[in-house]
């Protein structure tokens, strides 16, 4: 289950960044980017179905495990190809590769639980439902928002 983001809800508070760093001994895998003066967007691993990073990784350190793009630190050579391959810039290398592990072992990813605005979720249906509801409201109100 990857993490889904509702950009309309993100308030740019950067809790997800601090929480991610906190549970990954200082190296975070989520970054909040500010777009002009009017929006903030957390950027993090999409766990792509056909993940470029796994294609580029010649040792198989990055590989798919079901929906998850998993990482086997034992196999990583630190070559940095994954970093070049990722179209979102969310895999990075510092001796070895670092990427989102969906907080393996925790009940939910820390970024999802900690998000004060409820902008992050692992529930695809919820993300979908919100988008539909927003579209419906917008249509009913003549595109007012």
């Amino acid at each position: 289950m990857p993490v889904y983001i509702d950009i309309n809800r993100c308030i740019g508070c950067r809790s997800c960044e601090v929480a991610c760093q906190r549970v990954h001994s200082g190296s975070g895998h989520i970054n909040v980017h500010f777009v002009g003066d009017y929006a903030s967007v957390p950027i993090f691993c999409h766990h792509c179905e056909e993940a470029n990073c796994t294609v580029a990784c010649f040792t198989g350190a990055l590989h798919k495990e079901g929906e998850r793009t998993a990482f086997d630190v034992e196999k990583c050579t630190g070559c940095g190809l994954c970093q070049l391959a990722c179209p979102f810039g969310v895999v990075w290398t510092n001796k070895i590769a670092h990427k989102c592990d969906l907080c393996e072992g925790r009940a939910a990813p820390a970024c999802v639980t900690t998000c004060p605005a409820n902008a992050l979720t692992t529930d695809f249906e919820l993300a979908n439902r919100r988008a539909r509801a927003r579209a419906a409201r917008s249509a009913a109100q003549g595109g007012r928002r």
Partner: protein
Amino acid sequence: MTQVLVPTVCPYCGAGCGFFIAVEKERATGIEYMPDHPVSEGALCAKGNAALEVLYHQDRLTSPLKRKGESWAKISWEEAIDLVARAFGEAIKKHGPGSIALLSSSKCSNEENYLIEKLARLLGSPNIDNCARLCHAPSVVGLNRTLGAAGMTNPIPDIANSKCIFVIGSNLAENHPVLSRWIHRAKDAGAVVIVADPRMTHTSWMADVFLQLKPGTDVALLNGMAHVIIKEGLMDRDYIAQRTRGFEDLKESVKDYTPEKVAEITGVAAATIVRAARSYAMSPASSILYSMGITQHSTGTDNVQAISNLALICGHMGKPGTGVMPLRGQNNVQGACDMGALAEFYPGYKKADDPETIKYFSSAWGAASLPLGPGLTATEMMDAAGTGEVKAMYIVGEDPANSDPCSKKVHSDLDNLDFLVVQDIFMTATAQLADVVLPGAVWAEKEGSFTNTERRVQWSGKAIEPPGAALSDLEIVCKVARSLGLDFDYPDAASVLAEINRTVPQYGGITRERLGKAGLIWPCPATDHPGTPILHTSGFKFAEGRASILPVPYRLAAEDASFDYPFVLTTGRVAVHHNAGSMTRRSPSLISREPDLYVEINTADATRLNVADGDEVTITTLRGETQAYARLTDKVKRGVVFMPFHFPGTNILTTEITDPEARIPEFKVSACKISRRD
């Protein structure tokens, strides 16, 4: 290895989010979220996530210190307490009890605040205050006057029931981030969100209607909205007739505030004002959320009353989804006020100038005499220190040298004291000026109850021991009081809370045993009372149960842009810092995200000043000058600049002019000039 999870309440803002501290071998090793917490539902902002970073910080004070020339000498607790007791004893003997002043802390627990104000008053001094003076004193004065109770009228989760949320003078997305989850929940159910702020903030991203008003013109805007509501007949006539008094006066006083005239004053388009007024008045349940953008003005009390007027004429009070919500900035600033750490109130908002109050507490505390108030407020204490009226001061967990306006003057005022004792966890700028520094404990190192912004009293547990010789503020205050001959025999926080149960009616039923997971919301007069999440459901505590509508004319801010000082400087907060910053500036994951003082300047203004993004600039006001780097933005309008107040430089600039009633300084409006440093 065994891990224990200790439930605590976040030490930062007033939202009162809960989290667990994981403790292994007597060390705090991590944070675990608390998904069943009523306010935060497991969420924590960046500050909350970084809270443990201050626990083992190398700068923590671990021993009492005595000034020795320019440096400090470590001393024993006995010597430190003896020095404090002797200095205060002498000041009282020589100059009378009015010559001492105590500043209590809105970071301390209810129990500690209660003891600190009790200490001041038993010593005979009415001079007790806390930094609520700098954030919500106008709410305490204004709402007590109009509604009969200060504090949020409705709890935070109730915001989700609102159909129109009017946020004015609050950047809650950054300062109380967890509130945004409740606003979004209301929006999901179709609520309209109106945001009024001089800056385009993260909060304004949530808005359907955004009113970018000129700093200091809030009364004009609010009166303008009242004008539209009355003119269009959108008020709640039944509610006005049954529950209020003073409507006719208001009607008369706002008749000239036409949208066109208000547009001229505020810079907000007339049509937008009308739209905001209609949305607020016509929704079935509207709430107003406000914060320091309303209070930190020389017209702070007026602003609060104008808000209260709007809510009252529309009848948006006493029902789910309605109300007036002052968002408090510190974890226990509500509690510090409730406990009477205020110049004009004894515990439970009993008026300090009322002989009945004195009689009540004299018998409750077994005191022969108690001082009749009001005493000196936080800002007046500084002036009094400067003039020599106050000789000795005891400051607990506050950093006025950074947080008070016109900080250069505050430095010299505090320097003028015969004796200053500061009790804190770090060597703050204020502590640097002290004669004796006492090492306190942080929230995780002690237990006690804390009252969040929605009046929810929660118990926070003790996870670890304080570092070195540091002690909890409760223990230190008891030591000081005993050495001054007072009978402060409180073994723990629970024993103090038991006394609070007897003396503060609102807290009568809030006992240690009853403070479980969700806490209790005061007023809770008896042990079988469930608490009162929504205030004013059946009228107000005034005669006939009527609230007061008090007309307020628009007054200009004390300063305005001029030829020499062409910009209006307004101040505020950012998501990764807290108040004067003594904690967050020491927190690596927070300071790395916002390391330096900056000033936001409108792009067009910057071009005229020949300033590029990232340039070092000098900002000058009548009070002094500060260096900062420029951030070019269209978040602020032309002629307005913004600086966060988490860094020492900002309050060198701000004005010491205060609201005449609540005595809050006008942090939000200072005329300044800006030049590039080359």
